[in-house]
């Protein structure tokens, strides 16, 4: 039986208080900027990191593994759903895109 080869991942979640999209960094912080996240290239590591993330219920909600790719700036989304989560909705400049323009 052939298994699909492992593709690089990040751990994503939502922040407990405001529900904003967050990602797990290599030094165990939750960042609101996906480029700062830890890009996980190994399946066993990914599972470990997810278990760690799931124990962070006092800070985040609903942690999950999601595909990402390496770029010069750091990990970036490969699927449009996660890409939307790095920006915010497309009908208003709300969410991260607004925070970014305010220099946060």
């Amino acid at each position, binding site marked *: 039986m052939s298994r699909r080869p492992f593709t690089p991942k990040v751990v994503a979640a939502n922040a407990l208080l405001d529900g904003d999209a967050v990602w797990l960094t290599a030094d165990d912080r939750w960042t609101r900027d996906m480029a700062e996240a830890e890009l996980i290239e190994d399946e066993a590591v990914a599972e470990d990191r997810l278990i760690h993330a799931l124990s962070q219920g*006092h800070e985040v909600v609903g942690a999950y593994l999601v595909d990402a790719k390496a770029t010069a700036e750091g990990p970036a989304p490969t699927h449009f*759903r996660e890409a939307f989560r790095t920006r915010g909705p497309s*009908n208003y400049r709300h969410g991260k895109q607004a925070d970014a323009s305010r220099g946060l």
Partner: protein
Amino acid sequence: MYHYTEFDEAFVRERVAQFRAQVERRIDGSLTEDEFRPLRLMNGLYLQLHAYMLRVAIPYGTLNSRQMRQLALIADRWDKGYGHFTTRQNIQYNWPKLQDVPDMLDALADVGMHAIQTSGNTIRNVTADHFAGAAGDEIADPRPVAELIRQWSTDHPEFQFLPRKFKIAVTGSPNDRAVTKAHDIGLRMVRNEVGVGGFEVIVGGGLGRTPMIGEVIRDFLPQEDLLPYLEAIVSVYNLLGRRDNKYKARIKITVSETGIEEFRARVEDQFEQLRGEFGGADQELLARIEQSFAAPEFRTATFENFNAARLANPAFRAFTDTNLASHRAEGYCIVTVSLKAHGATPGDATSDQMRVLADLAETYGHDELRISHEQNVILPHVHKSDLPKVYATLREAGLATANVGLISDIIACPGMDYCALATARSIPIAQEIATRFDELKLEHEIGPLKIKISGCINACGHHHVGHIGILGLDRAGVENYQITLGGDHTETAVIGERAGPGFPADEIVPAIERLVGAYLENREDAGETFLAAYRRLGPDPFKAALYPEKETADAA
């Protein structure tokens, strides 16, 4: 207008206080998310893609000016200054912070509103015809009955853990504006041969993964039997409904697997047992509720100024042509205020707009407002002589778009701009279609046409019953839009047929243009609507317009 009794008020306040304590315990770490999640869902609080979302019930879509102002205040104080009205006659706030939600719920309770049973496997917000109590074609106002059902179903001890969510809609008019045939239970108020009022009861309708048009389980149910009969249906479903498979758990599957005959027999059986238990208390309650829904005192006045304004102002004339419906009282009309300005997000209203609507309702509309499942706001009782002033105020607030029932009056669910379940976006597609047909200046010529868009198979955007339905899907990591044709949400309800392969986002607007082009070319005359033409001609000319390459390939 119905006012909550002291019991209601105490119940809602107690629930808010409980939830406040639960939120505190979640934040201080004494509750895990697994423990907290069902509690927040019971209070209408969802977690979406970018933030939490609070869903607030607007029972049978009815609001007064004070409630609308409070919705505006909540939007300003704890959200981003707007709210989103949904196809379930709810309002959703897209950006609440967890720690603020108890305050938001308290602010709602101040005006007799809440978010209870807007989630979970319970009987949800009871919806009704948005023209209820005003429509010229109405047999009776369905809202007292909707309120009776709301009271019966709220916190009903047996029905807090149904196999799946349960939605009831009521209409008091033969022209069904409440989509009763696509609800778990639909109720149509009817009169029998001797003129006695009762209900046609429809069961097992629903959209979503397995769309079905409901079937008539009882063609005439006397009014006084309503609650025991509803209780019988829900208890039979509670017993038979599948709990092993979420996708087969809705009553529509129970009815189709059991067969309507067998299901009906079980319900009638149960009904016989339950009937005595209600003992008439429900009818006394209904009589009290009916008093608070007494029609306002309509005035008699002339309205030459209305006719004069129509002659003098083409924009006003266009507005009155599309956005008015006939009222049961002489000299009055029902005004639908479109929340579909071309290029805007369907169903969104800013807090300023909400306040303008509240002021208009208070000054010119007997203090009543309605939210339609088509995501518009209704001023149900406006005298025609006041309409020029109402129009001028709406216009200043960006609320005078003359497009009700036209191609740009699109239903769109939040889709992947907000919704965690979405497979694609809905809002930008609605915005682009509306903007495009506004540029073409064609929509009045096209006439009545309902486009409905959902961002996933759950079909909150009612795409199956759109004349043109659009379903957003994820096809190999790209947004893709599937078209259905010929759907109908009214008393002649039909599930639309899939037209063929889907279109990528940048091809959907041209595809819709081709479809509409085929309609304009093939219609008998301007009086034949898109749906009528589709019914006469069948799908072929429309499919040919959608897939011209295939046509040429087949011919070659």
